[in-house]
């Protein structure tokens, strides 16, 4: 099947992207697959200046899921542009930069810095990181904040498509998506992690130094599907589905409820070549289901 998809200013050779924070800067995966095979890759959240992130331990395994509180450790936008971006096959595969900042102006500065970089296909705005105490959670929650951040990024992003990544830790995700749309977002992505916690009954201590962290993996797929379904039917923007995708079937489930593309996150830890394999597996499953294109399948859930 022709796997190409185009939406919101992005053209991808297939709908398989990797999720921010689970695929490093992409280069780490070169021994495990051909990056050119992916529809795109979203790099670890980047901030203006390098960040050290949270203290250890930062990760914990949970039933069919995991918690993380990495705290946005990253090398900063300058080093990313200088050392990482040139080594990525951005002519063949969309390189999407995930932006992290603590204020709307910083988001704008980040966007401005990347707007002129030929190798960057789109910007993904992380308004929903629940790991960081300075205000990540607040950003994800208040529609007014989401709108302000989106506007700031959009104003500086030049012709780069702007993806706003939404948090599921809200009463009304459609209101959050609408705020992003009002702010000028081209695309929505959902979901980021659910806020969760794990503790050790023997040590009487949290399993994460940060106490709370973000829950991801197959455990949260039902929540992700619900959010994407709600967004896709309520809003005119294209949506990238994220949350617990580990198989071709999972990916098609998101497309069925209305997603234009998907991101593979935690499943990369099951084995580092998960995303690469998924491209072939989706192709095979589409064949089995006799699909002609994603167009006809997307959002075709019968209710």
């Amino acid at each position, binding site marked *: 099947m022709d796997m190409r998809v185009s939406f919101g200013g992005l053209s991808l050779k297939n709908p398989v992207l990797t999720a921010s924070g*689970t695929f490093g800067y992409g280069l780490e995966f070169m*021994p495990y697959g051909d990056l050119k095979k992916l529809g795109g890759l979203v790099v670890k959240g980047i901030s203006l200046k390098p960040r050290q*992130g949270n203290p250890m331990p930062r990760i914990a395994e949970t039933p069919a899921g995991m918690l993380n509180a990495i705290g946005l450790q990253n090398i900063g936008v300058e080093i990313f542009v200088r050392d990482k971006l040139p080594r990525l096959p951005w002519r063949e595969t969309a390189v999407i930069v995930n932006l992290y900042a603590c204020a709307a102006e910083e988001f704008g500065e980040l966007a401005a810095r990347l707007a002129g970089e030929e190798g960057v296909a789109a910007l993904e705005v992380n308004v929903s990181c629940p790991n960081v105490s300075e205000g990540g959670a607040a950003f994800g929650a208040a529609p007014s904040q989401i709108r302000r951040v989106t506007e700031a990024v959009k104003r500086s992003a030049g012709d780069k498509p702007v993806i706003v990544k939404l948090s599921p830790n809200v009463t009304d995700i459609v209101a959050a998506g609408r705020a992003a749309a009002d702010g000028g977002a081209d695309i929505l992505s959902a979901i980021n992690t659910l806020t969760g916690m794990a503790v050790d009954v023997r040590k009487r201590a949290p399993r994460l130094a940060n106490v709370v962290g973000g829950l991801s*993996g197959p455990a949260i797929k039902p929540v992700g599907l619900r959010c994407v379904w709600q967004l896709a039917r309520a809003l005119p923007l294209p949506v990238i589905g994220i949350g617990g995708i580990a198989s071709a079937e999972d990916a098609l489930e998101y497309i069925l409820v209305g997603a234009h593309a998907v991101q593979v996150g935690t*499943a990369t*830890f*099951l084995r580092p070549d998960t995303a690469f394999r998924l491209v072939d597996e989706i192709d095979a499953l589409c064949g089995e289901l006799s699909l002609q294109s994603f167009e006809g399948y997307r959002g075709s859930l019968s209710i």
Partner: protein
Amino acid sequence: MEHKTCRMLRVRALKELSGGEQYLLTLDDPGFSSWKPGQFVMIRPVSFGLEMLWARPISIAMCDESGLVLMVRRAGRGTERMARLAPGDEVALWGPLGTSFTTDREKPTLLLAGGIGVAPFWGYAARHPRPENLHLLLGHTLPLDAFPLDPFAGIGQVETFYQRTMADLDAFVALLDERVAGFSGGLVLACGPTPFLRTVRRLAEKHGARCQVSLENRMACGIGACLGCVVKDAAGNLVQSCTRGPVFWTHDLSEEM
């Protein structure tokens, strides 16, 4: 780019060691183009299903045409489930990963193992050009017959210390102190639980010995991507222990370690 790939391998044998707390897991030869003692693999049995998502980091004890041998302690749910593997069962596996222990042909080398930390030294001893220069000291809380020591038959000396009570700990630290002092002109290599490594480091610094330790941090990816396994280096930066380690020179690590 070095070609590593993630492989599906079959289990050849699983042998419980005496006491049932530890076992030897032998897999089909993965055909690594090369590997070095101290490096590890990420291993994820198919039987983990979707319940346990992460692979487990396990040191390469030995690897040749007769297979990949891992020496594993039942530490929790994953290593417990792994203990139920049977010949023919499949695991996903990637590696060899990370840094390795230094070999200095002519230097007397002290191998300090805390329990299952002995695993990487099996390969180290087997591949060392002058095994007579090696001295292994194994501190153990499980009975000694839970540890297969025949791989160390050819080395200079094998010494063991059975720590049964908390009181024994002082005696063990005293013994470590003495041995490290004796190898201050050589190499001190250590693998085991973090408190043990901290002690070794302190003693190595006290006696001015060159020292490497192999860290055990929780790992999700094993390849530097998730930033879940970081440790603070001497410059104060948080670096991935899966790619910049697991074996570090102690002087490259921050005091906090």
